[in-house]
């Protein structure tokens, strides 16, 4: 964190009544259906603050959908999600009635969450620095010069200050993803979500992204990572959640989840991911 400029955002140090005790994210009874298919079937999950939680599971298990619900890119059809105790999107009354919160409220709760996408989603008409500074200027109303200083600090944090003026098309996939991480970090989020951040990268480029994530985990940020990199999950993750067919099958420390005796579904899943570092666990 040493290279980060010590800037304050409106909420970063504001007194949250339950910030000290509340988990970073609390998911209660979340369900999601797309048409007739039930993708999430009542998930309860607690994401501890200041730690790295990895969501693993086979394709189609619903882990990305769960992450997108926590980012409010998808709206859960059932249940509630709270961010440090504050309800996200919907408030639930004692009788279980859900009411939609105001757009301002949704935006303010959401501004505390950062997201890194599988496809990077860098804006192609802006430079790396432009991507990082965009929200600082248009949303946080920072002065251009101040925003650029802050943006450069974030780029150097991911080791790309020398690529600041390059356009996304001039960067490798790994570099693009690191810029995307810098873009999310620039807004000083309390929680950083990663949606399969290395899944669309060539194998030789995954390392640079995973290293940046490892550094972030070491700095005490709250990370929630959907990943197929089992080796990364087992070594960096402090909490592991294993999803299967829209249900949370296992949740605990890597030792609890990966240790013997192993759940048969997890054992079967690990078999298919030997090349992603699962071999070391077997």
């Amino acid at each position, binding site marked *: 964190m040493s290279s980060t400029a010590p800037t304050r955002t409106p909420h970063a140090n504001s007194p949250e009544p339950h910030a000290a005790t509340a988990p970073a994210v609390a998911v209660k009874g979340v369900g999601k259906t797309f048409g007739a298919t039930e993708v999430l079937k009542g998930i309860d999950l607690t994401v501890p603050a200041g730690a790295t939680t990895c969501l693993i599971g086979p394709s189609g298990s619903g882990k990305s959908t769960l992450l997108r619900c926590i980012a409010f890119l998808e709206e859960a059809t059932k249940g509630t999600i709270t961010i440090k105790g504050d309800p996200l999107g919907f408030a639930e009354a004692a009788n279980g009635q859900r009411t939609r919160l105001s757009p301002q409220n949704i935006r303010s709760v959401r501004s505390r969450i950062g997201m890194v*996408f599988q496809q990077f989603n860098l804006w192609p*008409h802006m430079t790396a620095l432009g991507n990082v500074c965009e929200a600082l200027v248009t949303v946080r109303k920072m002065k251009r010069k101040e925003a650029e200083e802050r943006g450069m600090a974030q780029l150097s944090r991911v080791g790309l200050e020398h690529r600041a003026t390059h356009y996304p098309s001039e960067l490798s996939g790994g570099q693009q993803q690191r810029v995307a991480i810098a873009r999310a970090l620039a807004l000083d989020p309390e929680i950083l979500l990663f949606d399969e951040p290395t899944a669309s990268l060539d194998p030789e480029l995954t390392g640079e992204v995973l290293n940046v994530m490892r550094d972030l985990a070491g700095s005490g940020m709250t990370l929630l990572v959907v990943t197929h990199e089992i080796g990364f999950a087992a070594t960096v993750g402090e909490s592991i959640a294993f999803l299967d067919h829209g249900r949370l099958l296992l949740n605990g420390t890597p030792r609890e989840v990966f240790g013997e005796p192993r759940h048969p579904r997890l054992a079967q899943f690990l078999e298919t991911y030997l090349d992603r570092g699962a071999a070391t666990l077997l």
Partner: protein
Amino acid sequence: MSFKLFELMLWAAGYTVVLSAISIVIGLTIGLCVCAAKLARSRALSIPATVFISFFRGVPLLVQLLLIYNLLPAIGISVPSVVAAVIGLSLCTAAYQAENLRGGFNSVPKGLLEAADMVGLSPWQQLKRIRAPIALRLTLPALVNEAILILKASSLISVVGVIELTRMAQNLSASTYRPLLFYSVAGGLYLVICWTVAGGGALAERLTRTSRA
């Protein structure tokens, strides 16, 4: 051909370029409005936009021009023929440009807007900062193409009596009995204009850098 006559042809070519450029700009403006209406959620907006696009793309420009040229006086609006011609060209290109713009807006990858959503850009900021700039860049090649089509299509306004390049060639070949010469010169001038626009478009595309995204 004397230099004097060639000068007349050049002058007429300039007129063709000016009228086409005016039509393209007016057409782009109308096209943006029609595209916005077509993308609107309200049926009251999207249905008229769909009909507009379908009609002006489905009817030959010659028929549109003859219709507008004769319709305006019939409903009591008397305008010079060049105005009727520009209205016709503008409405026709507006329909095509609306479709091109719609294609551009629809091909902005959804993830780029999700990323904007995540960093807190409001819907209006997303449109202004992300969606519109990318959509316009994606539309640029189609816009250049449309400009070339309109330059060529503008030859049809000769039938309503506007003395642009084609009409000038027609008049001069009638008075000198040398159609082969004057239509060839006209064709050559159209070629130069179209190739210049195409070259300029290719250059502009190279200057506005975008990734495939």
